[in-house]
């Protein structure tokens, strides 16, 4: 039996009747310490002030409020609860819909209302039993040490082979975190050959996708969906693979299916909006972005790109017909939020203004001109780089708003910054035929490629020379600057003379202007740490 009187509980539910009913059940069990909260924010605050052994959290805390899954995500991501704590998701209906919305973190158990004291006690005791058994694994997880998790799994399975099923997922996650690709692949395939589970399919698909084996990943996901036709995470995975192989239309269909199954996922809705926009399905894009904006309100995945995306989708949907009053209000509101919440982000300020200007270009040309002028002024003094997508959008809007040469300027600098990415160059080519923009970077890109070859062949000095020449031609190119810094740091920062160290730091300062959303940002951070030691 559990020593109930020593355990701390937090009950989170928006119904006070329910809270008091559960509280009295716990009292009857002998529990002394029970706190309650009626919304997610309060729950998070409570967990940051006190360590709870048990959290009983209602999934649905009302429309427009954080739901239980989001609270769990926040608690885990911000490490406000230990892996040893027990989180029980209480659900009104059976738990299917909630299970489906769980992407990364899953509660220890789902408990369906109504439940009685005996049922509650039985569940909790069983979970505690299991967690006690898994203690070494859970503690290693709290320490963030995947190698120790792996060792603990091996130990436990050795102790009694019947515990092996409990370890499967921990082991797979640990292998993933340790980048042990081959063992992970073999392990997941053995699970799938024996007793297929959706998570194992998803993990294998993700692994294959990550390793660039998209064809195989696609086959895995398709097989998974045949076996488990209602798991959104599998449709998400298939969509990722399809995007990577350029089949955006089918990818959109997959995400639509995932959204139909589980509409409450901000990131999924946002990605769907983006895809639909690219596929010129403006209706679909507006709908998905609108959902993402409203669901994002209370989510850690709130993102101004979503608001900008919604505005873009609505403007595109209006097309040449222009916008009705209601749409203009919606655009105004969604952009107003961006401008208000990101006062220090020059890029977002520029983009919000241009988007707004575009939306009123026909209805209120004077306002459009004023906003455009403001945006251009801000652009002038802007240090940070826009992301490629943002730059392309800004360029096309400037052109539409009659600022052709400013637009061309944006395209030119975009080509300089991102010119080594063929996909970006293709998109630039859709907006301009100017050879001064389209082929200005060619020589530098060639030098960069040669530099990479030399670097790989171990000819460090030669590589540095090539990158240096490339950078002289295109000083803002992120890839070349990163390569320059990396090829210098390769010798060890302590071995660099003052001039080289300065050269390295200057390159990184340039790179540091890229948006944090850039996939190379991590690499930059690592190099920066080496070069600046901070």
């Amino acid at each position, binding site marked *: 039996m559990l020593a109930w009187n020593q355990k701390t509980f937090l009950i989170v539910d928006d119904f006070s009747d329910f809270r008091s009913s559960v509280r009295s059940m716990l009292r009857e069990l002998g529990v002394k310490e029970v706190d309650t909260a009626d919304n997610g924010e309060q729950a998070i605050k409570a967990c940051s002030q006190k360590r709870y052994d048990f959290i009983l959290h209602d999934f649905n805390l009302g429309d427009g409020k954080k739901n239980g899954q989001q609270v769990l995500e926040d608690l885990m991501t911000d490490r406000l609860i230990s892996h040893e704590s027990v989180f029980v998701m209480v659900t009104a*209906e059976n738990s299917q819909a909630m299970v489906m919305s769980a992407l990364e973190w899953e509660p220890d158990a789902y408990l369906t209302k*109504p439940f*009685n004291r005996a049922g509650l006690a039985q569940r909790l005791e069983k979970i505690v039993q299991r967690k006690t058994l898994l203690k070494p694994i859970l503690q290693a997880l709290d320490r963030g040490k995947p190698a120790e998790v792996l060792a603990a799994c091996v130990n436990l399975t050795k102790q009694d082979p019947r515990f092996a099923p409990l370890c499967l997922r921990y082991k797979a996650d640990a292998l993933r975190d340790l980048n042990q690709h081959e063992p992970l692949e073999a392990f997941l395939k053995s699970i799938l050959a024996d007793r297929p589970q959706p998570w194992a399919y998803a993990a294998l698909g993700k692994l294959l996708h990550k390793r660039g084996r998209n064809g195989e990943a696609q086959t895995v996901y398709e097989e998974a969906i045949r076996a488990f036709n209602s798991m959104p995470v599998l449709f998400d995975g298939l969509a990722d693979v399809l995007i990577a192989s350029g089949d955006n239309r089918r990818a959109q269909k997959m995400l639509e299916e995932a959204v139909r199954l589980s509409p409450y996922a901000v990131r999924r809705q946002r990605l769907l909006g983006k895809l639909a926009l690219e596929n010129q399905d403006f209706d679909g894009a507006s709908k998905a972005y609108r959902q993402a904006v409203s669901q994002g309100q209370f989510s850690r995945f709130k993102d101004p790109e979503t608001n900008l995306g919604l505005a873009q989708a609505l403007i595109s949907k209006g097309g040449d017909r222009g916008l009705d009053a209601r749409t203009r209000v919606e655009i105004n509101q969604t952009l107003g939020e961006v401008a208000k919440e990101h006062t220090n982000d020059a890029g977002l300020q520029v983009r919000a203004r241009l988007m707004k200007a575009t939306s009123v270009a026909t209805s209120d040309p004077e306002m459009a001109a004023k906003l455009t002028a403001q945006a251009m002024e801000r652009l002038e003094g802007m240090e940070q780089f826009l992301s490629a997508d943002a730059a392309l959008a800004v360029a096309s809007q400037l052109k539409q708003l009659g600022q052709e040469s400013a637009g061309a300027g944006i395209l030119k600098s975009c080509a300089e910054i991102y010119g080594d990415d063929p996909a970006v160059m293709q998109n630039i080519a859709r907006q301009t035929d100017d050879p001064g923009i389209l082929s200005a970077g060619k020589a530098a890109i060639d030098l960069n490629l040669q530099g990479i070859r030399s670097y790989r062949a171990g000819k460090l000095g030669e590589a540095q020379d090539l990158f240096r020449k490339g950078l002289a031609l295109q000083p803002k190119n992120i890839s070349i600057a990163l390569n320059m810094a990396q090829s210098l740091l390769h010798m060890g920062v302590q071995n660099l003379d003052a001039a080289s160290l300065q050269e390295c730091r200057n390159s990184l300062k340039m790179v540091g202007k890229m948006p944090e959303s850039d996939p190379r940002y991590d690499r930059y951070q690592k190099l920066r740490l080496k070069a600046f030691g901070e």
Partner: protein
Amino acid sequence: MSDQQQGLDFSMVIASTVHDMKNSLALLIQAHGQWVSQLPREHRGHAEQGVIDYEFAHLNSMLVQLLGLYKLGVNQLPLRPDYHELDDFIEAQLAFHEEVLASRGIAARYEVDDFGLPGFFDRELIGSVVSNVIINAIRYARKDVLISAGQVGEQLVISVNDDGPGFPQHMIERQSDYVLGINQSSGSTGLGLYFAANIARQHQRKGVHGHIEIVNGGELGGGLFRIFLP
């Protein structure tokens, strides 16, 4: 929003209403339980209490089943099998029905062949099937219900046995009709068999699908329901 006025999708209307009904029932059950616990001991345990507890449980399981059938119909019943300890699974079922069993004066026990035997199934779905069957068994049992789990060949079998009069002969003879949904006229038990069989069938391993079976007899001599999971 579209201006098109389309006819009501009645199954969806039912599903969303049932969802609300279930919420409302949950509050009712919880409040009633609390109220009863505050009553002086001599006022508890009346025969009416047995009726109330039983019908609460029965209503709840019907609503769960109805929602399940709806999802089955629109192909949105996600299957998420995992490893579960059978003793834990059955204990949870018995704990869930504790009040009903007590107020009907029925002793329920369980047997698991190999203690700690892990089963591989969707806990939620199999849980709602077994729960329905237990409610049904409670209705017909005189004083005993036995739940057991074990392995038959490669398959896991969970069975619910009671000491009542057993299933009507015609139901046993024509069980495949119920399972296939051909005979839907026999009310909740028939529908329950259809639901159970469908959930069982969703569980498969290497081409073998799960199934159900009803007979009379077993250790307690009454109705015996068995669900086979590969």
